[in-house]
């Protein structure tokens, strides 16, 4: 089977053609760097993505803090992680890269904050 992938590692978006059978890769063409090769290998055997979303914050100057997974996770878990993030609440203040949830789905994947949130003393939050 042959398939063309658009690599997402960097903005170049190289088009990489792969010949494969099942998870057995026969030929790769069009990659311009080793990351691209790794990317398509993964796409065929175990596609990974970084999940980005947001979780609720209590007592912060924003009601949401944007988060991302510490490492790319299997693509098939994206929606599930999306659901889980909605349940998570974290207290302000929050620093960038702070872990707001760990060991998601039993894997060694953390959810890290990607925004700085200040604490505010407000009765209305």
């Amino acid at each position, binding site marked *: 089977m042959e398939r063309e992938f658009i690599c997402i590692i960097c903005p170049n978006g190289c088009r990489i053609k792969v010949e494969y059978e099942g998870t057995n890769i026969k030929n790769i063409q069009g990659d311009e760097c080793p990351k691209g090769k790794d990317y398509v290998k993964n796409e065929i055997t175990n596609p990974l993505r970084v999940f980005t979303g947001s979780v609720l914050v209590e007592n912060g100057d924003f009601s949401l803090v944007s988060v991302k997974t510490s490492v790319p996770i299997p693509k098939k878990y994206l929606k599930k992680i999306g*659901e889980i993030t909605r349940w998570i609440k974290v207290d302000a203040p929050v620093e960038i890269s702070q872990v707001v949830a760990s060991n998601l789905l039993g894997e060694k994947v953390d959810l890290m904050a990607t925004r700085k949130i200040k604490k505010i003393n407000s009765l209305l939050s």
Partner: protein
Amino acid sequence: MKATKNHYDAVIIGGGMVGCAIARELSRYKISVAVLEKEDDVSWGTSCRNSGVVHAGFNNRPGTLMAKFCVEGNKSFAELCLQLDVPYKKMGKLVVAKKKEEIKDLQKLKQQGDANGVDNLQIIDYSEVKRLEPNIEGIAALYSPETAITSPYLLTIALAENALNNGVSFFLNTRVESITRLNNSHFKIITNRGEFTSSYVINSAGLYADKIARMAGTEKYHLYPCRGEYHILDKNVSRLISRPIYPVTSPSSQWLGVHLTPTIDGNILIGPSNEYIKSKDNLSVTSSVMKMLSAEAGEFLPLISPGYTIRSYSGIRAKQSPSSEGGFWDFVIEESDMIDNFINLIGIESPGLTAAQPIAKRVVEIINKKERLNSNPQFNPFRKGILRFDEQGEETKIALIRQDPNYGEIVCRCEKVTKKEILEAINNPLGARSLISIKYRTRAMMGRCQGGYCQTRIMEILRESFKLGPKELTLKGNDSYLLTGYRSSEVSK
């Protein structure tokens, strides 16, 4: 919901320009009045969807109510707007002839105008047209200095607020379901929000006046919807014309043709079209008409291109005959022959805006003939609108911010509307709470980004002011919810 029994001397069905004008006129007297309006706010029928022109009266057939009330209304309009703090600009109007054959129609229009008592009409030649309007193509024109423009929705809101202030009750989101006459003395009006009884019913339900008339068992009127679509142009091209520019139409025609009108806010409007449609609710804009409007406008103003359109909208006229029949139909403003004290207003199309106050006075006359109305000594004709920060001089702006820092927060970037104005609009005396109600009262969301920057801010201010949950916010009342849907977690729960 408990049924509430409310009795009023007069119930006005329909909170459009005419209904609110009648409410205000009646509030000059000691008589209890209620206005029942089915939408979330006043003016949302045809009243907010027209060109906003205060006509001089040369388009109307002599001897008709339309002619009489238009000329009367035009002459007292400046004062009305002054009392109600509503914008008004007497910029005059040109009816432009592009072909030689049209010049005799110009003369006929002038004669008609003279017969109706319109002042100062003149036929002007090419060089004068060019002097007044350098960008317009035309060989001659009828110049009507008495024509003016106003804001039709601000005027309706102002009439309503002044009426409210003078004792009239307004019931929004209130749709009439049945009307019965009790013992030949009272009317019982059942609505979706309770019952009312009244001695008089004034049917100013616009497009649905025929339905209301039938509900009560009065004469069988039939109204046919005729839609007019408009384009609003970016303010960057506003300098292209200085006053309304109309094409030549025959003096007997009730459609005034596709025209170019500056709005009181400084945009140019192109329109309206004239299309009989099936449904009275169909306010859509259609691509074929949009193309036609651009083409027609381009004939007068070659510098216009479709790229300048920031928005399109439409309004529906209440025509008294179908398109196949046509013919001329004057305003119907009369007490029903079949049911006492039931006053019908049928077919109030152009010049309905200009004629609103005289029409209202005619309704008062009808009631006055039946029973002596006593003056209300507390009546106050004056009403103050929302102060527009952007229109003030610099010293005033500085003073305003000092007095209230909410004047210093600009929420609508395109139209420079401040938080203070938004708050005043949100806290309007009529209690209208949708995004569109705020838009009409402040101009926010009417600029070139159409709410891209301010919409979310206005939603927050609305939420804060009334402690509303996000799912309660609406665009225009009823079920026009802004934020629906649920997040995955909410489903799982």
